[in-house]
């Protein structure tokens, strides 16, 4: 199955101005719980999306059938929708102008694309052995995928194949304490199930009775996984060009202002060495590095064609769907530049009494314009005393503004890590945030959890 061929056939049936995006997913995911395999899913599917602009309105239709009749029917549905809208109003969509000379990125690994269930089974077995050696049980997923994506208009298009691999291990001890470790990469060979299980197990078995802290403000050392969550929430609340253009975004009216600590430099860098790279977005627009926060100053936001038209800007290559996702554009390759600390231990060294956070969970935006979010800590929350991690903490609820946390950032580790949650709703779309660990002062916690 050649996705570019399908995209070109679809675009021809949709006519002038239309764009077709074709995404084929071949994936395998193995789940495990209590050191036993539980569920496993193999998927082979394709999604053809056709977007037809008419007088500024975009009709869109999708199918997973790739024969000519089905593509023609799909194109007709998109066209009818655009024509129905055209009859009522002129829209503001300016039309697709994809970049035809984009070179595909090197983002595919043949071994990963084999989707070998035996390799997955061996990874699970390694994790179970390591967990057992530490007297804990392993829970998690191992997953690999190949995503072949192409876009086309009547004048041709482009194609790119990507692979991704992800494994997470949560080890749970008999006393209920848990620890987390995960890795994401282009190549499955870069994942080490045993090493992940060991890291998770060491957190789950760290000694001492859990301490409960009262609500209040604490100095926090966030591991990269937690920093990645915070930054991804900024993607929704601050860097979304549509919300920005409509005055709802957290950076609306604040471009050029200091909104974070001067050490904070955030960009969307789709070809960064450690990210899950991609060369074009869902509208065929070239993905290029976009500075978002520079030395703590609000610098820019992400756009697709639609939000750019509303803002009077140009697309930065962040469309999630041809014609624009209803929620707006979203950065998919966020990178937070590292600092000077050697590791998390050095970040802790300056803390007299604080909290060590491995990861955040169930984060939800409370008030988007304030970047106020709430989330709970999970799978490795510890007390820092006199510069060292000492005892497990009962998990806590964090309720604070992400930009405020970044404005109170005190130090960052030198090394960065690709963090991802391996969450794959709908057609698989692997993405992550490259970031260091971070220490921030006066982070607000509103209660205990767990």
């Amino acid at each position, binding site marked *: 199955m050649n996705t570019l061929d399908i995209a070109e056939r679809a675009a021809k049936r949709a006519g002038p101005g239309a764009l077709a995006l074709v995404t084929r997913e071949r994936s395998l995911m193995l789940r495990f719980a209590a050191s036993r395999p539980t569920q496993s899913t193999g998927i082979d*599917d394709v999604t053809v999306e056709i977007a037809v602009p008419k007088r500024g309105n*975009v009709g869109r239709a999708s199918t997973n059938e790739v024969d000519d009749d089905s593509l023609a029917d799909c194109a007709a549905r998109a066209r009818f929708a655009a024509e129905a809208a055209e*009859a*009522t109003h002129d829209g503001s969509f300016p039309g697709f102008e994809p970049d035809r000379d984009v070179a595909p990125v090197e983002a595919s690994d043949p071994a990963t694309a084999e989707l070998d269930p035996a390799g997955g089974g061996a990874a699970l077995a390694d994790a179970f052995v390591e967990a057992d050696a530490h007297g804990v049980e392993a829970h998690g997923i191992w997953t690999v995928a190949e995503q072949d994506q192409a876009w086309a208009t009547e004048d041709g298009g482009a194609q790119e194949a990507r692979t991704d691999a992800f494994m997470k291990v949560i080890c749970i001890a008999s006393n209920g304490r848990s620890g987390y470790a995960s890795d994401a990469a282009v190549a499955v060979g870069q994942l080490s199930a045993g090493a992940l299980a060991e890291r998770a197990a060491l957190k789950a078995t760290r000694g001492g009775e859990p301490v409960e802290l009262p609500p209040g403000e604490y100095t926090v050392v966030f591991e990269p996984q937690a920093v990645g969550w915070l930054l991804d929430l900024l993607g929704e609340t601050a860097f979304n060009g549509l919300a920005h253009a409509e005055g709802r975004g957290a950076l609306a009216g604040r471009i050029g202002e200091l909104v974070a600590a001067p050490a904070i430099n955030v960009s969307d860098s789709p070809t960064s060495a450690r990210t899950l790279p991609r060369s074009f977005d869902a509208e065929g627009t070239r993905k290029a590095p976009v500075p978002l926060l520079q030395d703590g100053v609000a610098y820019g936001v992400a756009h697709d064609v639609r939000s750019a038209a509303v803002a009077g800007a140009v697309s930065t290559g962040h469309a999630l769907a041809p014609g624009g996702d209803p929620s707006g554009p979203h950065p998919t390759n966020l990178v937070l530049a590292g600092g000077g600390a050697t590791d998390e231990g050095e970040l802790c060294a300056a803390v007299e009494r604080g909290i060590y956070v491995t990861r955040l969970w169930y984060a*939800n935006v*409370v008030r988007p314009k304030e970047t106020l979010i709430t989330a709970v800590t999970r799978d490795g929350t510890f007390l820092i005393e006199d510069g060292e991690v000492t005892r497990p903490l009962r998990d806590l609820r964090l309720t604070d503004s992400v930009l405020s946390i970044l404005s109170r950032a005190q130090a960052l580790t030198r090394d960065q890590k690709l963090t991802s949650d391996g969450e794959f709703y709908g057609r698989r779309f692997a993405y992550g945030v490259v970031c260091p660990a971070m220490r921030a002062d006066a982070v607000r916690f509103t209660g205990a959890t767990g």
Partner: protein
Amino acid sequence: MRDLLANLIDSARARAGYADARFVRSRVERLSTRNGQPDQLDSGESEGIGVRVRVGGAWGFAAVRGTDRGDAQAALERALAIAEAQPAIPELAALAPEPPAHGEWANPVARDPFEVPLEEKLAVLLAADAGLRTEPGVNLTLARFSAFRTEKIFASTEGALCEQLTTECGGGIAAVAVQGSDSQIRSYPASHGGHVAQAGYEHFLELELPGHAPRVSSEAVALLHAPACPPGRTTLILAGEQLGLQVHESVGHAVELDRVLGREASYAGTSFVPADAIGSLRFGSEHVSVTADATNPGGLGSYRWDDEGVEGRPVPILREGVLAGFLSSRETAAEIGLDRSGGCMRAEGFDRQPIVRMTNVNLEPGEAGDLDDLLADTGEGLLIETNRSWSIDNRRLHFQFEGEAAWEIRGGERGRMLRNPSYAGVTPEFWGSCDAVCSEGAWQLISLLDCGKGEPGQVMRVSHGAAPARFRNVEVGVA
């Protein structure tokens, strides 16, 4: 397709202890307007076959698009290979027994939403959007329509062969007002996509979106100037969507048996509810009875058979505050010794395997009359109806929610509107503080359209029936 599935199951019978196959054809239409202009004009169709096998103790599932016989056979081979490649585990208990499902079922639809001309649907949305823009100071107006159709055929090695067709339809409106660093939103009839029912186009029209639009936008702007919800402890009345979400997050998810047994620890989480607590765990006050009922007309959790062929039926979850049952599958039910699955296995589409899900998890009505009666009986407190944000820990114990707006209750009547009304609690304490639930006449089904669970992720649409309920001594103003 029946023949294809039957042949597939025949091939699987000799090679797996159990196997089932589902054909699913899905159709969706989403339309919206934004600031007075058509915005989302989407339609989608997909079809394919998912094959699930149990070999030894391990499950394998593989899905392939389309209806090709050879591709379906390849999916079966893939499912078997996946199951066989996993670390060996002892044979698990047999699945809870279930008579093979046979027959056909479809929910009633007065007017097929997919046959209504696009222009007619857009006209309703544009009228509603125009109504939202009558209020100066509104930055963003949205009006939405959505319709879903799902055809399923299910077959299993135990002889099941059944077909179902569901049609769902609904919509909603929202207005966002911005001033300085504050933004406020009001929605009708619910946030997060509005209200959808298992029904036809008639349900979308019954929502009367244009008629509610001026009030919604007026409230969005008024919220910018409303006093903030003060921190403290007070009596809280929850109604509508917010009560439905409270049931969903703190009761529904907490009694999913896969979570209780630790199977979802790596993602959705576990539960504070022990597996052996039926009949002994006090979950709430004597006013709190909850039933999971897959037979509610119009509910998004309604069906004749779940996605492993178990007939849907009412399952008691809480009776007068005490745990009475779980949401379960054939595997999890057998594991704790239940006679029969609760019939709660649902899959998002052909390319996802069924997992334990909510049906319609309903708070049973009480005897407190209607909302006005409850307000009058309450005297002083706070009323929250529409949700803005939610978060709960992975054991479903500690939660924090915020509504779009709250109303003070003063002198037994609805008083001033307050902005940013958050509240927090601990599940059994919160439900233990419930001292009144309104009567059957005030009971209604609300819908939640984006319940995420499973890996790979599955989004499920569910409904919850409830009548307004009162909770004492709740911590508010926490965010």
